[in-house]
């Protein structure tokens, strides 16, 4: 502030250093008031929260629309309560919800169990060191790096019924020509094989890392006691590996249940609906037939399935972690 001699009035010039300092200190004080110990965690979380909201908006919109008859071909959306869900549970949609549920569950269950067993096997193989083990470990991880859509195309090339390499190799083993992805009986197993090839490395590598992080003492003790390798696996490795197994289970469950690109690229849900998972079914209802209300009902149920599954796995995982810490 400085006094203007001419008229005696006090003027504040914002260009004056004092004023600037004043504004600065105001800002600092404002900042102090906003950035307090109580608010810091929220402030840090805020950017992610905004993104969360951005993602949640379309999500909730779809959830709301699942209670509407929403078919843009037919007309504007109107509220019909849980009718879409009733239709699903009565199995009147075509392909029916129950069929899709079966496919989805078989797909997820087969995936998870095969991948866990295979992955654990591979992890146990690779946990030992041998000549070139580093290269083997790196190479085993390769399929995980391949986009599922490319993986599906890759296998489609090999599954090709007439010219494909798999039927060719099969012919030496006396197998008849099989339609694989085009055969209603073989399609689902064939897609599962693709998924297994794509994601077993993920399971194997996480379990491998888990194995490496295990304490050495109990194993040495068991070996001194002359325990069989099966006994060690069952009573030592497995329980100690539990938290890691749960994480693998969680990720594989989520991704198997909502897998879309691989199934769609490989079979379009056919033949004879043999691979019509819930996600693909919802896709047909929405993206092809504009029955978006029904489609969203499918997806909400799928989401609820994944959500509740994850909830229980995460709880079990926490428990396992605590058990291991004690």
């Amino acid at each position, binding site marked *: 502030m400085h006094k203007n001699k001419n008229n005696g009035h006090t003027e504040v010039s914002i260009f004056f250093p004092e004023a600037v300092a004043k504004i600065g200190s105001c800002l600092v004080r404002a900042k102090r008031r906003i950035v307090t110990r109580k608010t810091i965690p929220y402030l840090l979380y805020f950017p992610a929260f905004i993104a969360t909201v951005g993602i949640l908006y379309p999500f909730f919109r779809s959830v709301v629309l699942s209670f509407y008859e929403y078919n843009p071909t037919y007309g504007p959306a109107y509220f019909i309560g849980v009718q879409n869900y009733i239709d699903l549970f009565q199995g009147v949609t*075509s392909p029916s919800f129950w069929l899709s549920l079966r496919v989805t569950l078989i797909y997820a269950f087969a995936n998870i169990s095969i991948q866990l067993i295979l992955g654990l096997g591979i992890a146990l193989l690779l946990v030992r060191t041998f000549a070139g083990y580093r290269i083997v470990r790196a190479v085993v991880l390769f399929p995980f790096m391949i986009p599922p859509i490319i993986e599906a195309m890759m296998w489609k090339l090999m599954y090709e019924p007439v010219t494909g390499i798999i039927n060719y190799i099969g012919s030496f083993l006396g197998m008849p020509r099989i339609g694989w992805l*085009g055969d209603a009986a073989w399609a689902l197993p064939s897609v599962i094989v693709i998924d297994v090839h794509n994601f077993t490395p993920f399971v194997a590598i996480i379990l491998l890392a888990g194995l490496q992080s295990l304490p050495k003492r109990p194993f040495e003790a068991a070996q001194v006691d002359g325990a069989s390798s099966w006994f060690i696996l069952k009573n030592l490795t497995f329980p100690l590996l539990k938290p890691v197994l749960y994480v693998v289970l969680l990720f594989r469950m989520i991704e198997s249940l909502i897998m879309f690109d691989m199934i769609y690229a490989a*079979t379009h849900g*056919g*033949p004879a*609906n043999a691979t019509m998972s819930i996600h693909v079914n919802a896709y047909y209802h929405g993206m092809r037939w*504009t029955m978006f209300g029904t489609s969203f009902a499918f997806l909400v149920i799928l989401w609820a399935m994944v959500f509740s599954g994850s909830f229980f796995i995460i709880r079990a995982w926490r428990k396992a972690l605590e058990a291991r810490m004690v």
Partner: protein
Amino acid sequence: MLGKRGLVLICLGLVLLMVLSLNGFAQEKKWLLPPEKADVNWAAYKGTTLTIGLNKHPYTESLRPLIPQFEELTGIEVAYVILPEEEFFEKLLIDLSSGAGLFDIYMTSPMFEWRYQYAGWVEDLLPYYNNPKLTDKEWYNREDFFPLVLRANEWDGTIGGGMGEGRWNGIPVMVEFFVQAYREDLRKKWGLIVPKDYPEWYDVVTKADEQGGADFFGIVERGIRSWSTVHSGYYTGFNSWGQKELTKDLYASIDTPKAIEFTKIWVKALQDAGVPGWPTYTWYDGMESYAAGRIYMYNDCDFFAATYENPAKSTIAGKSGYALPPAGPDGRIASNLWTWALGMSALSRHKEAAWLFLQWATSYHSMIDATVKHDNFNPTRKSIWEHPDVANMVKNWGAYPGQYAENVNLMLTKYGDIRWTPNPDVTAVGDIWCDALHEAYARQKTVEQALKDSTRGINRVMRKWRIALGIEK
């Protein structure tokens, strides 16, 4: 020696002569002239940008090189999005149903237009056509289109009928019918006949399958889970047997005794003489295997001939014959029809400019270039079909000279039509129907049972239309 003046005079005279003669010519056939001569203010929407959604298709390939001409002519900028078929329709559907309105013009087809018209996503073209400020009818010459194909893109919105009346939803740019493409060389070698009905057809393909050995197959059809599997060979036969997929009351009628009888023959042919894993076959898989010489017969689009007869793409060029589809028990021959058309989005913000593009792209001038220079088959304008270059091109396709052209001609005039019952959910009906064929093929269900089960699904999809029409409460 002529003086300078003389030279100028002669030049002037020549130019005058040319202009005069052109004028005189134009009075008779104005539509043969380049677009500059049309009575249209091409430059009216200079600076606009149009976005066009195109399916990856030979027509698209033939249109793309022509677009710069349009941009130069009008000063309108054209952005185009080319997507593979499935993705194209999905993107289009998301775009239209979400009201986003990315596309001004898109490639479409009657079966999709029915949905789009009901949803209010496609613009009626007639008002633009009838607007003298925008259209030079004489130059555009709409009458040149085959009436059958033009009619397919018109609909008055009556569910169950009304084709060829009311709104004009799209301008056809190519048309295809479903014929028998077979190996003439092998037919002669093995002493087979060209089947005239479906029992004969079954015999022929099974015999060919036996003759060909382990790596050769009697028949291929497209097979993926899609309405298009039903649409092509299957519906062609189904309709020859006098069947329709919906009753007048919009209930499914795909499980009538005759339908079952036909379906049994058809599925059995695929089981006994078809490629393994038929349900994975897209139409291009089928085309590819046929062109690779592994298949005796492919009942699908006639214009695949352009690939079969091209030695660069095919190992069997010149070895194919093309025949009308087999007849039904009453001797009825009836092929389904497919046509790609250009339509205008109702969400477009540049509708007049879009019409200029449509008018230009489907004029004789553009379409003759597309066919002659860039292989767009089958053309939808009579005049192009009659053009000597085109006639010359297709002359040698088939078992005997002119077989291909003869077939197309018969189709266009006599046997071909859109056989589906017009309704907005026709693609859903087809998708569900296809499941029945897959189930019967996989021997999971009997043909009767499979068709009956699909009937239920179709009935549910059609329920809201029955309610809308007051047939059901």
